[in-house]
């Protein structure tokens, strides 16, 4: 009986994930469009956390966001305000949102608005700032804040108008295409970014902005290979949100890290987080940096792996090993091993090199514990101190404890219900 209950629930979760259809519908201001957002709310990546436990890069991004919002005038004042209890810190995941790395979202930041066309739920994400010294890696110098202001005042308005002229962008089709062009949607987004530019460029040039602004927007998108990441992430978020809360399901609905802890949530266990200290990322470092500089694993971007892309689709993105380490054969092995811990193959995201086999989709906590195979994640590495930024990229696994605790809680829940 229990096996069938779980099987049927997991089938239901996968049916929702497979039939979800994320589309980009527009750009809005976080405080106006994200549910539960206030002037003094700061969203962050990962499971819930308090200021005193935040890692360097998350603290740095919080400081930067307070400076950006004009709620503090310098670092010292920002730290004082953050520690005062006046600011409400809350996970992006509790607000239909996701954020890469530190994932900090504040009230006046522009955000992409996505809709799951099949189920009607929305997801939100900030626009990607590029690599290096950026807020999401905990940098908050004046160049970081100036870039964010330019994004608010030029980038977002131009793209908003272009989107109004274009109409909704079908992201499911675009992500599927990008995966067949050598992206995996987490750390390699060259194809996705190029496809987005190809789609929007004719409409950007038709907007009412100056030639200079339009050229600057196109140049900014072109110069940032990760621009599309902030669209794959909310596309995955609105896919997974629709599949949350399916009773008796053992499928992972959320994986996320705040730089201190890694947390997971299970579809059949509602909003409960199962957390453990985040692991260190093994990877390649930018010149001048080493493992000594690294912060533990951070960011909501592991939502890609949770949906069946990212590290799970590495077989289709062999070039990524130049960024995260390893060999193309390793990339294939990572994908093939993920079939051991997932419920089924993706019907939309397929890998040409594996004879167009669908990517491994829907992580089952029972399979993870039984096989001892942990989900593979490829990710950026943030400097451990606030204000520095990205120092490398690599591969990491979730702590096994999250999965063990989730399994234990699931069994306890079944006992409570009298099913076992």
């Amino acid at each position: 009986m229990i096996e069938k209950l779980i099987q049927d629930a997991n089938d239901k979760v996968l049916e929702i994930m497979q039939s979800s259809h994320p589309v980009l519908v527009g750009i809005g201001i976080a405080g106006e469009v994200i549910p539960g957002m206030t002037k003094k709310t700061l969203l962050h990546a990962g499971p819930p956390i308090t200021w005193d436990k935040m890692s360097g890069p998350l603290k740095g991004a919080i400081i930067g966001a307070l400076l950006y919002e004009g709620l503090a005038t310098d670092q010292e004042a920002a730290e004082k305000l953050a520690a005062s209890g006046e600011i409400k810190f809350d996970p992006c995941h509790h607000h239909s949102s996701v954020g890469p790395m530190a994932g900090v979202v504040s009230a006046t930041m522009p955000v992409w608005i996505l809709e799951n066309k099949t189920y009607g739920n929305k997801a939100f994400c900030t626009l990607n700032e590029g690599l290096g010294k950026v807020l999401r890696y905990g940098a908050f110098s004046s160049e970081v804040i100036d870039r964010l202001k330019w994004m608010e005042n030029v980038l977002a308005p131009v793209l908003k108008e272009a989107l109004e002229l274009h109409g909704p962008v079908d992201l499911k089709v675009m992500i599927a295409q990008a995966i067949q062009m050598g992206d995996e949607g987490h750390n390699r987004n060259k194809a996705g970014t190029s496809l987005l530019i190809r789609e929007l460029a004719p409409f950007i040039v038709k907007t009412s902005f100056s030639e200079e602004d339009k050229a600057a927007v196109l140049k900014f998108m072109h110069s940032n290979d990760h621009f599309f990441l902030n669209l794959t992430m909310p596309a995955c978020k609105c896919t997974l949100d629709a599949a949350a809360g399916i009773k008796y399901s053992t499928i992972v609905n959320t994986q996320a890290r705040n730089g201190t802890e890694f947390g997971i949530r299970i579809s059949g266990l509602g909003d409960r987080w199962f957390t453990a200290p985040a692991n260190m990322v093994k990877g390649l470092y930018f010149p001048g940096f080493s493992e000594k500089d690294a912060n533990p694993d951070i960011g909501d971007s592991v939502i890609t792996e949770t949906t069946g892309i990212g590290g799970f689709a590495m077989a289709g993105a062999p070039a990524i090993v130049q960024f995260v380490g390893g060999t193309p054969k390793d990339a294939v092995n990572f994908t093939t091993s993920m079939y051991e811990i997932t419920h089924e193959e993706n019907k939309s995201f397929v890998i040409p090199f594996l004879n167009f086999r669908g990517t491994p989709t829907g992580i089952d906590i029972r399979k993870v514990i039984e096989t001892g195979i942990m989900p593979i994640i490829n990710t950026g590495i943030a400097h451990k101190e606030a204000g520095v930024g990205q120092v490398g990229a690599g591969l990491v696994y979730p702590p096994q404890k999250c999965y063990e605790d989730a399994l234990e809680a699931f069994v306890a829940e079944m006992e409570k219900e009298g099913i076992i």
Partner: protein
Amino acid sequence: MSKVNELFKTELKVINMGLKSFSNELKHQGVTVLQVDWRPPAGGNPKMIELLNRLKDRK
């Protein structure tokens, strides 16, 4: 016994499950060996095995 002896007179092709050092030793002796990536369920953790069993139908 005689059948076992016959086996060792032919070319050996070995599938090794478990400790990889066994297959490495055979490889060094030029034997064709395939290592199976096998681990005990839940890494042999009794608590996890029990939890997994609770989620299986009683046969």
